[in-house]
Structures are given as C-alpha cells and as structure tokens.
C-alpha cells in the first residue's frame, strides 16, 4: 500500500494478527462480557429487591384477610325487645346485646363463677361481636325469643392467638392415679406416681441457671466495684444462696411463676393451672371447672405445658384455656375478613376496615383526575405546539420541570396556605386533597404528554398542514389522537403517584379518624396511604396486620393502574 500523503509520513498499519493484537482483542472481549454482566447484575439486584419487598409485604399482610369467630347458639330472650316494638328497627338496633352474648358464652363454658373469670371470658369477644346477631334480628324479628346460631367475632387478641401468636402446647399422659381435692378455686392434686418429677427438675434447673448467672454478675461487680456496689453484691449473694438452697434440697415445694413455661393438669373435664409442685402433689388454680373430685386413672389425665412463659405472650393461661376449649368444641370458625372491606375505621382492630379510606381515595382521585387531565393535556399541547418561544414560555418550562421535583410536602404547605387559609375550604375534605394532588401530578402529566406529542413525527402534522388544515386542526385531529396512548400512560402513572401520596395530605387535615363513609366531596375523609400511616402508629399488635393488609390493597390498586398503563402502551405502541 502506498501512501498518498507523501513518503515523509510514517505508516500506521492495522494489525489484527500479531500476538499483541490477539491479546488486545481478548481483553476487549472480556471487557464486553463484564459490561454485559454489570447490566444483568443491576437488573438482578433490582428485581431481588422488589421481590424481597413484595414478599415481605405479602407475608405480613395475608393474615389480615382472615378472621376468627365463635359460632354459638345464642338464646335471645322473648323480652329482649318488647313485642309491640319488634317492627321498629331502632328498637332492635338500640337493644343491649351484651347480656345475651355473655350468657351464650357462659353456657358454652359452664361453671365459671368468679367475676374475673367471667370478665376474661366476655373479653374474648369483640365489642362488635353482636353486629351479626343484630343484623340477623333486624332481618327477621321473629327470631326474638328463639335460639339463634350465629358467628360472634373474636377480639383482636383471641384472633391473633388463632393466627399463631400463642404458645406451643405439649401434652403427656399421667402415669399414676390422680386425685383432685375440689372442682373450682384453689385445689391440690395428689398422684400415686412421681408424675411431676420432670417438672420439678426443670424448675430446679432454671433456678440453677439463674444462680449461675447471678454469680457471674456478682463476680464482675466485686472485681470492678468497690465500695459503691457492696450492698448490691450482698443482695445478689443472698439471692444466689436462696436459689442454691432450693436447688439442693429435694423436698422443698417448687413455685411456678409467669417467667417459666406454664404447667397445667387436665383432669375430669377440667383444667388446673399449677402454682406449686412436688414430685407427687401439686397445687393450683382451676381454670376450667372439674366435673367431679373422682380419682382419675393413669392415662385419663394429662399434664400440659404451655411452652411460652405467660409473661412472654399476650394471652393469659386462662384465656388460652378458654380458647383451646372453644377450639376443641369446634366452635372456632375461620373466615374471610369481609369487615375489612365493608367498614370504616375503628379503634378495635378486629372491626377496623378500609372502606371509608377507599371511598376517600376514590373521591380525592376523582377530583384530581377531573382537574389535571384536561388542564395537563391542554397545557402540554399549548407548550409543545402553540407557545411562542419567548421568555415567558421558557419560564413556564423551567417551572414545570421544577414543580415535578418539588418535594410533595411543600405542596401540602401550599394547600394549607391557599385552599384552607385563603379560600376557607373545609379541612379534611377530598376536594382539597384532590386539588393539592392535582397540582402535584400536573407537572408529571404535562411532561409525559409533551413527550408523547413530541414523539409523533412532524411529517404527520406537515401532511395535515399540507392539505390545508389549520395548525389547531392538524394538532387536534392528527397529532393529539396519536399521542393519546402516551398521554394516558403518563396520566395513569401520575394518578398512581397521587394514590400513594401521604405527605401533603398531612398538612390539610386528612390525617383523621373517619368512621363514616364519606359521600360528598366536602365530607371529612381520609385516604388509603394515610390510613396506613395512622394504623401503623397505634399500639395494638393487631393493627400491625391491618397496616400490612391495607398496604397490600393499596399495592393491588397500584399494580392494576400500572398494569393498565403497560397494557395501553403495548396496545398502542407505535414505532415511527
């Protein structure tokens, strides 16, 4: 190859065959593979994160969609509602249902006499439990005076117990013949074999462990302490001595407290919670009354362990006893939690629902959509097609880009200052929420619409103009319809954003306890994400499930909306 530029210039040859070139190309291909792997890894990490998040949410939220009830025969006394008022729904509604359900409970577990036991029993039912019964009576007043079989809603703690927050229960049969001393109250039980030796040993073991732990603490204090801790050390030493004494003397009666697994004896149809025990005799409190004081033969009675110490669970031994009895009788019924979708907010977790929040969200989004779709599209058309290019339109453009990035909480401040304080709109109203959210998502919609309009090739518009259409005709007849899928996608994504927004609504009073379902744009309302925010801050553990459940519903709606956007895009996607 000769070089036309002249002999003076050095010749640079492409070299693709030498070893150096091969090395170079190997390196380049390695870089290629690495680069591709980075991309795949990035997607993988993101997908993993989304997966973990969704899994986490679903795992926590699933239990919120079921609920437990007690199916019971409730005897409705004939004088429950006077005969002449049975046709009056208000009278049926206003009747006192508590005694009726209480009596039904007492009939289900007979023999509970103490006031404390009775209260524990009645508190297993939700305060909203009679709702089903009331509805039944309202539908059919003739049921008054008869016995009705209805499912009565359990309280949140009882519900959680059946959802698995209780305790593992271990049962083993008694070896000797057991003799109880009574049927209720504090009783003792004697057995002919060393039935409780294992329990005594385990209690002593626990005491020994505690003593060992305290000994280490005492040693630490003596090493570092000096004068200031002398008294504390002697206290600990005394405690250790007492513990050791207990461990060493076999005869001493052992005492069970709430910090150790609970031990119970099931005998003669009753249940006794043990408080003191030796190898052959135990004393305890009757949780479920015994039918008699007869001897129980070996194998006919059981020693029961609630493995989680009473102090480490929400439900007491008494409650566990009741609930287990209900379960044995087959009265516990697990069903889909329809209340969650049909009722408004409540301070009782088992009664709380998302209906009012859902309706609030719907009303708010309606206002948002009604405002920001037309305004957003028209503004986008104007800016993209008609606006003269001058300082003012430049300003508008900067503005819109800026508004898209302004923190949402600042829009809350705007709503507070302008709509509430200046225009005197009512607080907590969907109309205000809708206005604020409309301003919030307007930039998103304008930007998306502009992008969609821009993506329509100019040739389409030119063709229309070429046949004599006016600029507006060209835009509204040809460009806008072609851009519509893009605009719809942008709008749906904007609305999904509005649906999940919390921060600005904090400022305009939508963080409120709303029981009644809002019916108008000016009624007090809350929205789904705010409901989540509110529930998350309540102390009851059951609200944690509600929170997760509500999150699932919210995400469900978001997926639906995103899915619609994706579908639209797929269906109308055009490549120019």
């Amino acid at each position, binding site marked *: *190859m*000769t*070089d*036309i*530029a002249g002999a003076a*210039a*050095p010749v*640079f*040859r*492409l*070299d*693709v065959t030498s070893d*150096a*070139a091969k090395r*170079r*190309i190997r390196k*380049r291909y390695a870089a290629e593979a690495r680069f591709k792997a980075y991309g795949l890894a990035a997607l993988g990490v993101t997908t993993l994160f989304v997966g973990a998040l969704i899994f986490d949410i679903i795992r926590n939220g699933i239990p919120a969609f079921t609920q437990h009830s007690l199916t019971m025969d409730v005897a409705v006394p004939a004088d429950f509602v006077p005969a002449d008022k049975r046709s009056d729904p208000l009278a049926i509604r206003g009747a006192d249902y508590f005694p009726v359900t209480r009596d039904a409970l007492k009939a289900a577990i007979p023999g509970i006499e103490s006031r404390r036991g009775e209260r524990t029993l009645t508190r297993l039912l939700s305060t909203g439990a009679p709702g089903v019964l009331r509805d039944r009576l309202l539908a059919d007043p003739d049921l008054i005076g008869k016995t009705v079989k209805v499912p009565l809603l359990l309280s949140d703690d009882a519900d959680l117990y059946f959802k698995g927050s209780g305790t593992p229960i271990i049962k083993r049969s008694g070896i000797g013949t057991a003799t109880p001393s009574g049927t209720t109250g504090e009783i003792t039980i004697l057995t002919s074999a060393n039935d409780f030796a294992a329990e005594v040993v385990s209690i002593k073991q626990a005491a020994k462990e505690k003593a060992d732990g305290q000994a280490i603490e005492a040693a630490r204090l003596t090493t570092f302490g000096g004068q200031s801790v002398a008294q504390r050390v002697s206290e600990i030493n005394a405690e250790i001595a007492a513990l050791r004494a207990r461990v060493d003397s076999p005869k001493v009666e052992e005492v069970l407290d709430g910090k150790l697994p609970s031990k119970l004896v099931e005998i003669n149809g009753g249940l006794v919670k043990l408080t003191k025990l030796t190898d052959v005799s135990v004393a305890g409190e009757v949780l479920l009354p015994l039918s008699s004081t007869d001897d129980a033969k070996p194998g006919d009675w059981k020693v029961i362990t609630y493995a989680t110490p009473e102090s480490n669970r929400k439900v007491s031994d008494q409650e566990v006893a009741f609930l287990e009895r209900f379960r044995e009788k087959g009265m516990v019924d697990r069903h889909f939690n329809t209340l969650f979708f049909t009722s408004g907010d409540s301070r009782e977790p088992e009664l709380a629902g998302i209906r009012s929040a859902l309706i609030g969200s719907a009303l708010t989004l309606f206002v948002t959509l009604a405002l920001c779709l037309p305004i957003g599209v028209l503004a986008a058309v104007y800016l993209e097609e008609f606006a003269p290019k001058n300082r003012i339109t430049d300003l508008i453009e900067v503005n819109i880009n800026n508004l898209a990035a302004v923190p949402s909480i600042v829009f809350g401040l705007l709503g507070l200052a302008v709509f509430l304080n200046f225009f005197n709109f009512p607080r907590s109203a969907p109309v205000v929420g809708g206005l604020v959210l409309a301003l919030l998502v307007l930039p998103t919609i304008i930007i998306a619409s502009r992008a969609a309009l821009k993506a329509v090739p100019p040739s389409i518009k030119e063709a229309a103009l070429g046949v004599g259409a006016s600029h507006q005709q060209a835009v509204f007849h040809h460009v806008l319809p072609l851009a519509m899928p893009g605009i719809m996608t942008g709008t749906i994504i904007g609305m999904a954003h509005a649906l999940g927004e919390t921060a600005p609504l904090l400022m305009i009073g939508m963080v409120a306890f709303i029981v009644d379902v809002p019916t108008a744009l000016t009624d007090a309302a809350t929205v789904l994400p705010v409901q989540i925010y509110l529930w998350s801050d309540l102390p009851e553990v059951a609200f944690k499930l509600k929170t997760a459940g509500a999150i699932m519903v919210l995400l469900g709606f978001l997926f639906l909306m995103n899915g619609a956007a994706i579908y639209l895009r797929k269906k109308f996607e055009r490549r120019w």
Partner: protein
Amino acid sequence: MDMSQQTLMPEKAVLLPVGTSAKVVARNVNVYYGEKHALKDVSIDVPDKSVTAFIGPSGCGKSTFLRCINRMNDTIPICRVTGKITIDGQDIYDPALDVVQLRARVGMVFQKPNPFPKSIYENVAYGPRIHGMARSKSDLDQIVENSLKKASLWEEVKNRLQDSGTALSGGQQQRLCIARAIAVSPDIILMDEPCSALDPIATAKIEELIDELSRNFCIIIVTHSMQQAARVSKRTAFFHLGLLLEEGETNQMFTNPTNERTQAYITGRFG
C-alpha cells in the same frame, strides 16, 4: 496478496478479467429478513484498488449486500445470511472469525453523515484508539492528520480540531466520516449512498475523494445516481428484486448492457 487469489477455488467461473485480483469474492449469498428473502443467490468478485458501484432500484438488495460484507447485518436480530463471502480468501462468515476485527478491516461510510457527538479529532482518533494502532499521542496526531488529509478535510478543520464533529456542514461531516473510516487503514471501504444527503458541490468533492482513495483501497459504493456510478466506478453491478442481474465494466454496462432490465433501468424506463 496474490497468493490468496490462487488458493481460492471459485465455484463459478472467474468473473473478473484476467490479471485483476479479486479482493472480495461472494458466492451464492442469500439474505433473509425473517420470512422475507431479500437477497437471492448473489455471486460476485470485487477487484482490489478500484471502485465498484452497486446500482438498482430501491429495495433491490444492494445495501443489504453491502452490509453483508462487513457483517453489519449482524446488528439486525431477524437477519439471516447464507452462502459464502471471502475477503482475501478468508471466509468472513466463519464462526471463528472475529467480527470486530473484520469491521476494522472493512470500513463503512453511511448514507447520512453520522459523526459522533465528539470533537473532530476524537471522531477520527476513535478507531485507531480502540484498535491500539498508535503508541503515543504524537502517533495518534499523525494518524488523525493523515486521515483528514486523505479525506481532503485537513485544510478546513486543522485549526478547529477540538470543535464538535456535529458542528460541521453536511459535506464536511461526510468527509469526516470518511476520514474516520480510513483512519484505521482498512482494506476495503463500503459506501452506502454517501452523497444522497449532500448538495452537488459537496457531492463533487466526495466523488473526487473517492477517486483519490481508489488508488489505495478497494471501494464499494451503493448509489442511486447513474451518473455518479458512471463517474466514479470502474465496475458496476446491477441489482434487481434481490438478484444480481448484471455485473461488468462500467463503460460496457452503460453503453451496452446485456440484460434488458438493466437497459430499462439505465435508460430510466423504471426505477
């Protein structure tokens, strides 16, 4: 280089006049875009150090065939190529062959000038850099200068090498793209309607350049302009509906075509 000519056993008769060495040899090349059979059984020999023009009506497959020669069709997922194309006797569709190296040896200039959104200097230096052709900055400067000189652009841009390549005029951009292509000193330069986006003056400059370059490179040019083919090429191939209908000396093709459809096309009766 002549050695390779002897090692190749053409499946058809040698199409080139005796004494001319074939740089690119294609045999029974078929191209499919999905279901569409875009190129049918094309066989041709392209001589070295001369200009060969591909002409034919739109959609006849000439660009497709051009893109086969440096395997640019690989970037289109649905495209499938069968047959055999060799450059200097080497099968370029050999799976063992490295497409990246192939393209370094076969430069390409596109219909629309497509300078990278970088400086003029960087546009030209890019190829030599990725292929490790220069050991030092001064080497690279030298390559850039040479290439720009060869592309007859040096005088116009030597004082503004750091300006963006996109700031040049259309004709200059296209010459920059040519400079970019020859900077890696390829054996072959493919030109896909390089002047279609240019005005007559810029076109004349490019044609002049092509003529200049043909002394050193094997140049294949796809063109719509019969006059251009007549002006710049030594040999011409006429494509129609995916078939290579006629191929030969340009003079002969334009004065006395053997195929009647070629004649019809050349005289402007269709196309």
